């Protein structure tokens, strides 16, 4: 590998209001290389990808392609320069066909000059080929809204491959894929590498990095921490770079006594989302829920909190059957739910911190519907102090806070309702290590106080470290339930990807 770098980033910085997402970062990649970008949530990986693909314009620094400085005005420019990417967030057009989703932005046109009409026949045919290539058995004319999560991800991959690119970027392409699909993806990546293409591969899973990547770069908090050849690295050396301290500090599961059953779920169904879900939750217990993205965990929690309706099944609270038609009813029964999407569901970014904290409590704090601003104020102050929200004042807009502090606002908001059952959905996604530890501490303390806790997480170490028991889901089914002692990473992961032989079907 002595060829010259095809892509070089020099001294790149990217600032968002209040955040340095990237801080003087260098990066380079050569043809025929698979390069891993590694880093915790929020380290700046996706931001780097967006700069390379022309979606963002860097605040400072240069991007060199084949030695020449680029100045992409949009993703289109990057595409025509031979750069393609699978972005992390879903970027599909649900109302449009698979073919169109693949070719949006670079429709094939008839005529030699490429000025003719859009050539549907050719595009459909190429889609067919691409789908065959990645062994995806769907019609090119299918509307994307009719596809499942994994199928959508595969279409995203096909989309990246539809461009004859020199550089292919994959931002967490495997997060929703089964083992077999991951194997297919490996095959494709190897083929691309052999064709002399440069591949940037982002993943949180170390085995994947060691399986497929040649080189790596580690980011932490927007800064480059280290890089090198994968063959020279070990998992622990990389983790050290990522986290900057040893792992044991995290996941401080405290002692708590497991009490009576508070919540029983029996054969719960929601058509199209999950089937025959059964489990129990005890007082003082932390019940982990693990699975791949799209496994249906969130959907189950939404039903428990009264957001969605179950199509059948029973939920019992302290032995009594309940059915929450509205979140308010679930709240009255002592359930609190911290949703996974902080921006869309957890907080109201344009409202003040105080108003966010008191929002679920306004009815209780008011007299005949009239706000009691004093009571609100003191409640907000109490919990802001307790959860240690760092802000310029509780009347600041929530949007001015960092991600971690925003998550603390969500925690404060729900803890202030004094819940008996606390459901947390990906509570540490995209927040810094310090806050993460703080969240874990709070959860542990709650359990110690005898509250029942459900912790949904896609981070295996977190689930393993925090839970008393672990429920594992795959494509809408519960595949296994592990006691803390018997849960080892391999077994849990296998259950999550539903290897043949288990009882899910």
């Amino acid at each position, binding site marked *: 590998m002595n060829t010259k770098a095809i892509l070089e980033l020099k001294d790149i910085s990217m600032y968002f209001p209040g955040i340095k997402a990237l801080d003087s970062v260098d990066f380079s990649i050569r043809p025929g290389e698979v390069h891993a970008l590694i880093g915790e949530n929020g380290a700046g990986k996706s931001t780097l990808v967006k700069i390379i*693909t*022309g*979606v963002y314009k860097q605040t400072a620094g240069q991007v060199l392609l084949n030695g020449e400085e680029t100045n992409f005005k*949009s*993703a*289109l*420019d*990057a*595409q025509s320069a031979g750069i393609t990417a699978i*972005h992390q*967030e*879903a*970027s*599909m*057009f*649900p*109302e*449009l066909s698979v073919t*169109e989703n693949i070719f*949006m*932005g*670079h*429709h094939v*046109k008839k005529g030699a000059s490429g000025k003719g*009409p*859009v050539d*549907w026949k050719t595009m459909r045919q190429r889609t067919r080929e691409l789908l065959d290539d990645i062994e995806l058995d769907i*019609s090119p004319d299918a509307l994307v*809204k*009719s596809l*499942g999560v994994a199928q959508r991800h595969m279409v995203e991959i096909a989309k990246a491959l539809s461009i004859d690119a020199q550089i292919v970027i994959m931002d967490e392409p495997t997060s929703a894929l089964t083992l077999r699909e991951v194997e297919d993806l490996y095959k494709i990546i190897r083929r691309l590498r052999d064709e002399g293409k440069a591949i940037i591969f982002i993943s949180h899973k170390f085995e994947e990095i060691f399986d497929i990547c040649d080189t790596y770069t580690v980011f932490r908090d927007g800064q480059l921490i280290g890089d090198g050849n994968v063959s020279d690295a070990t998992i622990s050396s990389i983790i050290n770079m990522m986290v900057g301290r040893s792992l044991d500090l995290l996941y401080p599961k405290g002692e708590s006594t497991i009490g009576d059953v508070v919540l029983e779920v029996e054969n719960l169904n929601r*058509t*199209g*989302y*999950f*089937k025959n879900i059964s489990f129990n939750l005890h007082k003082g217990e932390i019940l982990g829920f693990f699975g791949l993205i799209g496994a249906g965990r969130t959907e189950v929690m939404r039903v428990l909190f009264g957001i969605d309706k179950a199509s059948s099944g029973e939920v019992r609270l302290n032995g009594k059957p309940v059915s929450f038609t509205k979140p308010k009813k679930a709240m009255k029964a002592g359930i609190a739910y911290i949703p996974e999407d902080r921006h869309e569901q957890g907080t109201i970014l344009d409202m003040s911190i105080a108003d966010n904290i008191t929002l679920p409590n306004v009815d209780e704090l008011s007299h005949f519907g009239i706000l009691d601003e004093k009571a609100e104020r003191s409640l907000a102050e109490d919990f802001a102090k307790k959860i240690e929200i760092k802000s310029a004042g509780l009347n600041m807009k929530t949007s001015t806070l960092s991600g971690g502090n925003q998550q603390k606002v969500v925690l404060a908001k729900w803890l202030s309702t004094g819940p008996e059952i606390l459901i947390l959905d990906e509570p540490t996604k995209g927040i810094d290590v310090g806050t993460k530890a703080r969240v874990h501490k709070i959860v542990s303390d709650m359990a110690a106080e005898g509250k029942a806790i459900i912790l949904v997480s896609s981070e295996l170490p977190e689930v393993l470290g925090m839970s008393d028991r672990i429920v594992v889901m795959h*494509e*809408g089914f519960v595949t296994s339930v592990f006691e803390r002692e018997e849960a080892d990473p391999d077994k849990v992961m296998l259950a999550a990807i539903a290897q043949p032989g288990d009882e899910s079907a």
Partner: protein
Amino acid sequence: MKTNLNMKKRLESRESVLIGLILLFMAVMTITMPRFIHPSNLANILKDSSILIIVSLGQFLVILTGGIDLSVGSNIAFSGMAASLINQNNPELSPWIILVIGMAIGLGLGMINGSLVAFGKVPAIIATLGTMSVFRGFTFVISKGQWVTAHEMTDPFMNLPHGNFLGVPNLIWFAIFVVAAFFYFMRYTRSGREIYSIGGNKSAAVLVGVSEKKVQFLIFSISGLVSGMAGVLWAARYAAAVNEMATGFELQTVAACVLGGVSVAGGSGSVAGVLLGALFMGLLNNSMTMIRNMAFFQMLLQGLIVISAMTFNVVMERRQDKMLLNRRLA
């Protein structure tokens, strides 16, 4: 199995539902009023719907991106008035040149909307609510409050919509031409497809290099362009350019789009659907004049039909979604 599903899908698609509704409606009309089915009446319906079709297609593009263009009626008035004044003052000028000028004026007004929305970031509904007043106000200014009527217009000008080609009135040809152009544009050009992408998922569209600003500017420009065309045709067809022309027309075009299955949230809808929606509106308008003493029920009936069609659409959509869900975890 697969073909079966496709068949089912096709049968349930909004367009076929609309065709069914239209046929049903026509059947009922024919039974109660045999003259309805007379070719001359059908031709009339087509003529009456032509301008609505043309403008609704422009409105369609705007709604497709989740916006709305409330200024089309005023745009028609302004460009129609301007074209008529030009015709009045330059009788020797070819009507085709006047048509082009009228379209250019409409385009210009559309570009004002487009700039406000794309570059000024003014919400579409506000921008066009404002220009709706402004354009109509200026119609009055350029006409000084006067009308331009038949004897001030030249025959070639009035013949623009009224003349025949191959036995089909020009007005219908104009509509056919615009429909064909839109069909081609929306299906076979990148820009057309990009409009769908912005309405479907804005952030995803940006990720694949679609420029939101460009698309927004484009759709309002097109909406203005077709409104300008409609303005000229309108003035020439009724041989009268008055300040109040096409008042309230914007709501007709929105209704045609909604009837045609265009989602007001953006992202879905088709040229065929809009065509059928506008035809249905034209049909409604025409039948109201066909039935004795219907004048007073027209508004009520129109509203009821629009709301029923929308309810029907929503229910169908929900059923379709449910079908998809049922298949998902089978």
